[in-house]
């Protein structure tokens, strides 16, 4: 708390100063430079945000139907991933098409550990406290491996390597099919909700709690990281590598670090998905998922934590809404034969196009712009009064 009044170290202050805006920087709307020292302890501020969020979610989970709880659990799982990815792409300027593979690493680790525990008759919900962190660790290790390559590559070449990572997952599970059971995947043993919560406690609510807890922890850690020295290095490297190097930042090390953290986030997201769906299979973590994740962070608003939240919400609710909207359309049998299944997809595509036209900086960018317009409107009369 006392850090408030302490003068900022000079290196940090230098890094935080926004210089001329690079094109990528201008695209990432979520990054208004905060005045150093202006808003108190970052950790405490984030902690309060997260606690308020957790309390809201806790009570909301009681007020909604089991299926909505399941949907929120899925949102939370994706949120872990989009937060990490938006940090990597939005803040560090690295593109990854391989995040579904890191999710798979986390998910399979959790699956294998949970099943191992239950085979050895070690039961209880606490096993998740072992398997989930180990899933994160495994994903982080995989991230470090890829990150070392990634630090040497730029633009399309980086995209190419990470694409290969995403594509290798099904082949891997097939090659070692005695462990991963090929295309069919594994079912994951997950203990039911503690009996203390009552006999009719919906399992979906319990899953939502686990997922949201993980998402909150991830959000807290990443938000703090971004506001720290590392976060500023990330941005410096993204904006101008040479300038960053001149300021004493180790570029490759910074890029690898961003990759590892981002992969770890994907690992926890994958692990949570394994827990809430109680099943892992390679086609869940296919290339489509990687592309969808990228789509989500761009649509949500690249580089901002709120953008990551919007993105995770979109990933779950947009396909759901398009299916719901097209369901009640009554068509003749011959017409529905051609349209069934394709109509929601067409609507999905249409919505994406409209959103990109209306809000090229993503949902968060649009809100920011709206906020600015309102603020300007509000301040204008005051200024005229002064005149």
């Amino acid at each position: 708390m006392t850090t408030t009044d302490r003068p900022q170290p000079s290196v940090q202050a230098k890094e935080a100063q926004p210089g001329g805006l690079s094109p990528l920087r201008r695209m990432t709307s979520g990054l208004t430079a905060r005045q150093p020292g202006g808003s108190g302890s970052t950790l405490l501020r984030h902690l309060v945000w997260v606690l308020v969020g957790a309390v809201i979610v806790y009570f909301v989970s009681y007020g909604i139907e089991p299926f909505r709880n399941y949907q929120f659990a899925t949102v939370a799982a994706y949120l872990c991933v989009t937060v990490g990815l938006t940090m990597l792409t939005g803040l560090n300027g690295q593109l990854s098409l391989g995040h579904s593979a890191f999710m798979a690493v986390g998910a399979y680790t959790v699956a294998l550990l949970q099943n191992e525990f239950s085979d050895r008759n070690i039961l209880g919900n606490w096993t998740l406290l072992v398997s989930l962190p180990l899933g994160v660790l495994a994903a982080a290790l995989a991230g470090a491996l890829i990150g070392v390559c990634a630090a040497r590559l730029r633009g399309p070449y980086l995209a190419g390597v990470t694409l290969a990572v995403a594509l290798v997952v099904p082949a891997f599970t097939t090659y070692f099919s005695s462990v991963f059971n090929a295309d069919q995947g594994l079912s994951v043993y997950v203990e039911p909700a503690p009996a203390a919560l009552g006999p009719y406690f919906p399992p979906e609510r319990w899953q939502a709690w686990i997922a949201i807890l993980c998402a909150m922890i991830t959000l807290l850690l990443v938000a703090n990281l971004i506001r720290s020295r590392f976060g500023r290095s990330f941005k410096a490297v993204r904006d101008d590598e040479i300038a960053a190097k001149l300021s004493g930042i180790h570029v490759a090390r910074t890029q690898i670090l961003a990759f590892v953290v981002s992969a770890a986030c994907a690992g926890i997201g994958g692990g949570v998905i394994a827990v809430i769906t109680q099943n892992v299979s390679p086609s869940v973590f296919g290339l489509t998922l990687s592309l969808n994740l990228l789509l989500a962070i761009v649509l949500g608003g690249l580089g901002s934590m709120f953008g990551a939240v919007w993105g995770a919400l979109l990933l779950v609710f947009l396909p759901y809404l398009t299916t719901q909207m097209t369901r009640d359309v009554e068509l003749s049998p011959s017409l529905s034969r051609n349209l069934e299944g394709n109509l929601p997809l067409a609507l999905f595509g249409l919505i994406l196009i409209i959103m990109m036209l209306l809000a090229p900086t993503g949902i968060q960018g649009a809100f920011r712009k709206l906020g600015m317009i309102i603020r300007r409107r509000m301040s204008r009369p005051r200024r005229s009064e002064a005149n």
Partner: protein
Amino acid sequence: MHRIAVRGIAIAACLALAVTTAACSDEAPSSGGGSTANVPGVTDTEITFGTHQPLTGPASAGYSKISPATKAYFDYVNAAGGVYGRKIKYLVEDDGYNPANTQTLVRKLVLEDKVFAILNGLGTPTHTGVLDFIKSQNVPDLFVASGSRSWNQPDKYPTTFGYQPDYTVEGKIMADYVKKTYPGQVVCHLGQDDDFGRDSLAGVERVFGASGVKEKQKYVTSMTTLAPQIGAFKTAGCQVIISGTIPGFTARGLGAAAQLGYKPQWVVSSVGADNLTLSGLLGANKGLLEGLISVGYLPIAVDESNPWIQLYKKINASNNGNAPFDNNIVYGMTVGYLTVQALLKAGKNLTREGLVKAIESGGFKNAAAGPYRFSKTDHSGIGGMQMGKISGGVQAAFGPVYETDDGDGAVKEYTEAATAPPSNGIPTDTAVK
């Protein structure tokens, strides 16, 4: 900073107070009890079923025609007054053959749409992932569209029932035919690297013994060619290849063999032997299909003399927009017919427990060649199959219907005569007590 903290805590506290009053205890779900009044998905005028199908994506070719055919049959029955005065509603969700989508969609169907039962969910990897959820919700899970043996575990999954013959039964019947027809020839097996291929091989080995199958090859659906596998068969000198493959890989196998100038006798699983689908895939090379031996459990779509085909064609014209008539439509309509039979047996007071009990009472007879094996201890579907052959570009069934089990039981002829459909095309089964 303090201001933010104080403000946050104040907001949280207010919310806590506001919502605690609303959220107290969870009530018991109302699905229990014996009366129809509070059974999910059942009203006095309607029964709602849900399903997950690959309407788009890699498995959609052919399979996307199944659920519209089932729906068409339900519409046909609804037009004649429904079942005990209740119309059947069928909610079809597209999972694109992606297990992640299946997870979400089945939860949506059960928890949000509150369907009475899941019907004919398609695919081994997709449906395997939702078995535990379905069990925890006590939802009837009828006639899964896959021949995995997983559906037949009445102790573990008491509400799940299979439909088509499982792949082990199929493997045994194919192998038995090969043993009798091509004695002394070298037999090999090609299979998909999941339950489908593994169960099929298990069936073949029950007949030939593990050493009786000279070369065993596997593939996964992400492969683009089967040339290495077929090369291995050629090297091993295989004369008969028994194949547990989906249509795309049956076609690839035939193509790879043709390129090597290699002509084994193919005996292909019902899953991957539909003449119409295979000719479409092979295009100009469809001559390769000549002489292919297949195995089936439903009448073949081109068999105009079969009364079931005549009935289905009529319904296809009146309720399915006259879709191109193939084996997938025969499959879908038979699922619809079987479902109506089960509902009739379950009686007027429809409950989930009652429906499960009605199916376990067994004794279903319809278009299927062999018997349905449903009983209290057996949740597997059809147990009998008939061999078929493509000659002159036409696929036709021949010989007797065989039946067997997935254990060590012998393959024997099923002698009971085929049944004809009732004249109005709606089953007449009566409620069991």
